């Protein structure tokens, strides 16, 4: 079940380039935390370190700690695959497995798992996950059609269903609505609101109104200049960040005075 995340003195390097420096941040369980900031500020990099997804980039490394309920996900004996099962991820562009059916897309993570589930158990998980992703009513009659036959917004909810089918504790979302139309976006936003009762959610978004609408807490990142490392400027209750930010840089960014 939902776990809290603590990031302590996190630096992220890609080869010799320091992309992010000195991030310390707490993400409470069962809440939505939004990461906002200009391009290059390191918000997506920080998000990816929360399930060690950055490690797929050659030369990427981190210093500092990321704790899940006090447990360091970078400890020597921790398997990154196990981390990614606990901390699921939804990407910017919906990426269902194109040749797989809707059903198989949701079941994909479970089929990769070592333990074998009975068909009826699998049916159960698929139903529950599609329901939780607010997609069940729209696909119940065509579970065996390809995932690619769905609209963009439905595909993204399918990816969310796939992510939650393996019962993660944390859901990371990297600009999950930036490829979607406004109605699909609102559907995803509603879904985020209901998912936070069970999961810890961290969302990166370029849409500040979206951050203001969906998140409980907001963290603002920026960078001093091109080639400089990204840094966390301030984090706090979303209402405070958008109503009365403490740092001038936050105010300038959210008010559109940036650049």
């Amino acid at each position: 079940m939902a776990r809290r995340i603590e990031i302590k003195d996190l630096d992220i390097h890609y080869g010799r380039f320091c992309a992010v420096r000195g991030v310390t941040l707490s993400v409470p369980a069962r809440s939505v935390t939004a990461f906002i900031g200009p391009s290059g500020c390191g918000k997506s990099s920080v998000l990816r370190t929360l399930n060690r997804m950055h490690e797929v980039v050659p030369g990427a490394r981190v210093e500092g700690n990321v704790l899940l309920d006090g447990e360091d996900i970078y400890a020597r004996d921790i398997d990154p695959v196990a981390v990614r099962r606990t901390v699921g991820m939804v990407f910017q562009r919906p990426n269902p497995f194109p040749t797989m059916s809707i059903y198989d897309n949701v079941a994909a993570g479970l089929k990769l798992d070592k333990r074998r589930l009975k068909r009826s158990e699998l049916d159960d998980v698929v139903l529950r996950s599609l329901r939780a992703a607010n997609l069940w009513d729209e696909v119940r009659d065509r579970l065996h059609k390809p995932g690619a036959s769905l609209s963009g917004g439905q595909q993204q909810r399918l990816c969310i269903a796939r992510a939650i089918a393996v019962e993660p504790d944390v859901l990371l979302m990297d600009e999950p609505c930036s490829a979607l139309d406004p109605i699909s976006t609102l559907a995803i936003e509603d879904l985020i609101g209901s998912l936070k009762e069970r999961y810890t959610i961290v969302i990166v978004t370029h849409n500040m109104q979206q951050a203001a609408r969906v998140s409980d807490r907001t963290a603002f990142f920026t960078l001093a200049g091109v080639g400089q490392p990204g840094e966390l400027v301030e984090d706090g209750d979303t209402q405070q960040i958008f109503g009365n930010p403490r740092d001038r840089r936050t105010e300038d960014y959210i008010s559109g005075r940036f650049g």
Partner: protein
Amino acid sequence: MRTAFREELDLITASVAGMTELVAMAMDRATVALLEADLALADQVMTGDRRVDSLRTDLEDRCVALIAQQQPVATDLRLLISTIHLAGDLERMGDLAAHIAKIARRRHPHSAVPAQARDVIAQMGDVAHSLVTTVADVLEGRDVELAAAMETEDDSMDALRRKLFTIVLSPGWAHGTAAAIDATLLGRYYERYADHAVAIARRTVFVATGNHPGPVRR
């Protein structure tokens, strides 16, 4: 960035300053009209109030449009929401000046203020003038300290109003019921005018700091 938005915010701030100037002038003229029984000046105040009223609706429309189109946040949002409120305060201040002008008009060619109360009313006019001038500065500089200082000045308005009551209620009052009612209403109008000025100052503190100043001292 957001040049058009920033320009419109500046224009809205300028309109508030203009409206403040109008209600300051209205009160100055109303006080003179009252003390000098100047009918032409009283009429000017009452006509001028229509302009203040239309400025208020205009400001409100512009704030609503900007909120809808630009999704302002932080200081910008506080400024727009506060402007909607304080435009209402300013409109009310214009109305109160017009009420005073109306009393001057009703008693013409006589003065509505008996000699006994003249000093107090003149002082109330002075304090009103001073408060509205200060509020213009508070708005212009978003001056939090000056805003706080206004509350003390408002206290002196309240003291003057009590003094006016004492005069009207004294056995020496020889000007009849109608004049007593006029004096009582006038006291009320000046005092309310000052309260609205203080309310505007307090809203300006909210715009500048994001915090509401503490409860009004009474």
